[in-house]
Each structure stands twice: as structure tokens, then as C-alpha cells.
């Protein structure tokens, strides 16, 4: 396996940011109420992660230790702001429903964590692979969550305004608590246990 592939794969299951590393939970849980949000968030997140990983792996040799964190975080914040502005301009509805969680990607532990732990120690290609892998892991997790929450929480499935699916009989009395924060905790907790039970991830 090439190092690119290895670095890419790691983020999907073995170091899945949500289910294994338990990082970057806030946006994952907060916006996973609909598939639209999940997709929008993933796109923004992957862009920021990949771009910042590339930039940081390029310049890490130059960065003085003392201001390492501020420099990294300014770079990330700039990228986030760019995405934010773009979204506000071109997909305003999505931008509105992501709310403050979009600019908060800045402090998403995964982004800075990868910058610190990986990009600042590896070359450009490996960093990109790592970012893509982690991004995919993040995307899969948030999509899974939003799928479950939307389906059980509303009894139906919509995607960008198109109605996809309704569970007959269920949509009158869906488990609407799943759309609230507590619902996200319940789903994530149960999924975590389920993954461990199935042996996908390890017990503590």
C-alpha cells in the first residue's frame, strides 16, 4: 500500500475523528439534523482541512515555535472565513442553517489537531492524504448521523428540498427528540457501543 493510501485509509475507520478520536464533536452533533447540513458541513470541512494541511505542511519549516499555534490558527481561520463568505454568497440557505458552526470549524479540534500532529511533521502529499482520509471519515460519520436522525426524528427523508422517502405511519409521531441535542447524544452513544460490539472499534 502506498503511503498515500495508508494515510488516507487511516482516517476512515481506525482513526475516525468522530467515533474513535472523539474530536470535532460539536459541529458533527449540532448540524447533523439534516442531510443537507451534513453535506454542506462536510464540504466546508474537507476544504478547510485539506487546504490547511497542505499550507501548513508547506510552511511548517519556517514557523517559529513560540507562535506556532497562533500562526496555524490564523491560517485555518482565514480559510474558514473564505468558505463562510463563499457560502453566504452562493448558498445562503445552507449558510444560515449551519449558523455559527461554520465559522467554528476554525477551532474544530480535528483541524488544528491534524495540523499539529500530522501536517507539521509530514510532506505535502502525505498531509493531503491524511486530510482527505480524515475528511472522509468525518463526512461518513456526519452523514450516518444525519441520516439516522432525520429519518427517525422526522419520519421522512429530504435532500435539498426534494422529498425522498417517508416512513408510512411513522411520520405522524416520529421520535422528534432525535432532532434535539439529546437525540444526537443518544444516537452517537448507541452507535459507539454498537461499533464496539461489532468489533469495528476497540473497547476502552
Amino acid at each position, binding site marked *: 500500500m502506498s503511503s498515500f493510501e495508508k494515510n488516507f485509509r487511516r482516517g476512515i475507520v481506525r482513526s475516525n475523528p468522530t467515533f474513535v478520536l472523539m474530536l470535532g464533536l460539536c459541529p458533527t452533533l449540532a448540524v447533523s439534523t439534516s442531510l443537507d447540513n451534513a453535506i454542506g458541513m462536510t464540504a466546508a470541512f474537507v476544504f478547510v482541512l485539506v487546504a490547511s494541511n497542505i499550507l501548513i505542511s508547506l510552511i511548517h519549516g519556517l514557523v517559529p515555535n513560540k507562535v506556532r499555534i497562533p500562526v496555524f490558527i490564523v491560517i485555518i481561520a482565514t480559510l474558514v472565513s473564505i468558505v463562510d463568505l463563499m457560502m453566504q454568497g452562493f448558498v445562503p440557505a445552507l449558510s444560515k442553517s449551519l449558523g455559527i458552526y461554520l465559522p467554528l470549524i476554525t477551532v474544530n479540534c480535528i483541524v488544528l489537531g491534524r495540523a499539529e500532529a500530522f501536517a507539521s511533521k509530514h510532506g505535502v502529499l502525505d498531509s493531503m492524504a491524511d486530510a482527505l482520509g480524515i475528511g472522509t471519515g468525518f463526512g461518513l460519520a456526519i452523514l450516518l448521523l444525519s441520516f439516522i436522525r432525520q429519518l427517525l426524528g422526522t419520519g421522512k427523508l429530504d435532500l435539498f428540498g426534494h422529498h425522498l422517502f417517508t416512513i408510512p405511519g411513522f411520520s405522524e*409521531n416520529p*421520535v*422528534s*427528540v*432525535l432532532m*434535539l441535542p*439529546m437525540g444526537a447524544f*443518544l444516537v452517537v452513544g448507541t452507535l459507539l*457501543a454498537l461499533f464496539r460490539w461489532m468489533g469495528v472499534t476497540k473497547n476502552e
Partner: protein
Amino acid sequence: MDNKPLVLSPSPHLRGRNSIKRDMYLVILALLFPTAGAVYFFGLYVLLMLAVSILSAVLIEYGAKMMRRRPFRMDGSAIVTAILFVLVMPPRSPLWIVVVGSLISIAVAKEMFGGLGHNIFNPALAARAFVTVSFAGALSHWIAPVHSMLADGVTTATPLSESFTYTLSKGELYKALFLGNVSGSAGETSALLILIGGLILIAFRLIKWQVPVFYIGTVALLSWVLGKDPLFQILAGGLFLGAFFMAADYVTTPLTTRGKVIFAVGAGVLVTIIRIYGSMPEGVCYSILLMNAFTPLIDRHVHPRVFGMVKRTKKEVA
């Protein structure tokens, strides 16, 4: 007599007659009173709810134990939870919601935490909170007591709801509230029957009298201070049921009597605040759940007075 190997067991070699089963079946006995009241006031449908609740709770517990490869014991705790869950639900709750409630109470709030004795939150109340938030629409139908001699005096709204109005005199209203002739959750309306059940629990030393007294007392006092009718506040809603049966659950409340008093006072304050300032009409369920969350912290800091420690600490301070 020498051939048989002797049993070597640790002391004490004498055990009392307490057992988990005995405790739980005594609680069930005490619960028979409010349960009978629920059936009398709200009809046989409540009996159906009870049957579904108990059956599903026991089956779910059995399933959970099998999945966890732990022995299943009919210790009665699931039955207590199931009965209490029905008693705090609207008397015409759909049966499927009752099943979901059992799932949440037994599977989530109890077994996921490790089963009897390990849960942090009161299973019955956790389930109630879950289903009322989730299926608020389906659970907002309250009915008037079917046997009410005073039914035309009160509306079908629950006493604490904003839309509750009555045409009775104050005294008659108190009487209706005390006997249970008002609408409300299945088992919460009759203060009298709950009191009888509660006294049974106290008589068998299953619960401490301090818990209901401080809980109800705090609500009365604080309501009075805040300008509400204290008698109405304690008789309306689920305060009695909560005080005698739920704030006194062993597993989810502090261990020591002093801790229990702190719990009761805290819950009393919370109920009053929620009722007066919050958007919920009733706060008993949430107040107990919140205090459940505080229980580990209370237990950490409130210990019994260790024999022989009184003087020591004083010396150490000096």
C-alpha cells in the same frame, strides 16, 4: 457428622430477612393504592396500559440480560418501574408509547448503565421525560376522571395548566385534589391514596419520612414565599407521587439521610422554580431527574459522622 465437609463462609453467619425481592414487592404493594385509584378514576384502559407496560418491561429486561450474559432475576424492580411509568403518564397514552417508555426506562436508563443498582437516573422518570419531549403531540390529551362527582366543576385541563379553571369553592377544590377527582397523570391525582401507599413504605422502613416531608414542605414554603397558594401547589400535580415513590428510590438518590434531605430540599426548590418561572406547567419529573444528576456529588461530600471523629476534627482545626 465428620464425613460431610463443613461450609466455610465469612461472618456474619446470620442474615436478616431483607432481600431485594422483598423490598420491591413491598413497593408494589404500596403502589396498589394509587394504581387502584388510577383505574377507578380513569377507567379500565389504565389497566391495559399497566399490563402492556409490565409485560414489555419484563421482556425487555430479560432480553437485555440475555444479551449481556447476566442472570435474569424476577426481582420486581422492572415491575416497579413499569407501574410507576404508567402512573406518571396521561391516562389515555397510546400503548405503543408505553412500549417505547419501557424500552427507554429499562434498556436505556437502567441496563445500559449496568442494571439494577447502577443507574444514575430514575428509569421511570427518564422514560417519561423522553416520551413527553418526543411525542408531545400524542401525549397532550388529558381526560377528566370518569367517576368524578365533581367533573363539571373542573375543566379537563390538568390543575397546573394555564387553561385550568374551576367553578368550585376553594374547599371543594382542595377536596377534589386530595381525593383525586381532577384530571392529570394516571396515578398522580389522588393525594390520599398515595399517602396510604407512602405510609406503608415508611412503616416497613423502606423509605425515610424525611424525604417526602422535606420535599413537600419545601414546595409549600417556597410557593407561599413567592405568593402562590401553598396548599394548591402541593396537592396539584405529581408532587405526592414524586415525593413518596420517586424521590425515595434507593438507587438514584443519596445514601445518607442528610444527603436525602439535601436531595429533597433541592428537588422542592426546583419544582417551585420550574412551575413558577418555566414554561413547563409541572416540574416534579424534571426536579427529580436533575437532583439524580447531583446525587453522586452529594454522596461524595455528605458522609455519615464517623464514630470518634468529632473530637479529632476539632483538634485538627485547632
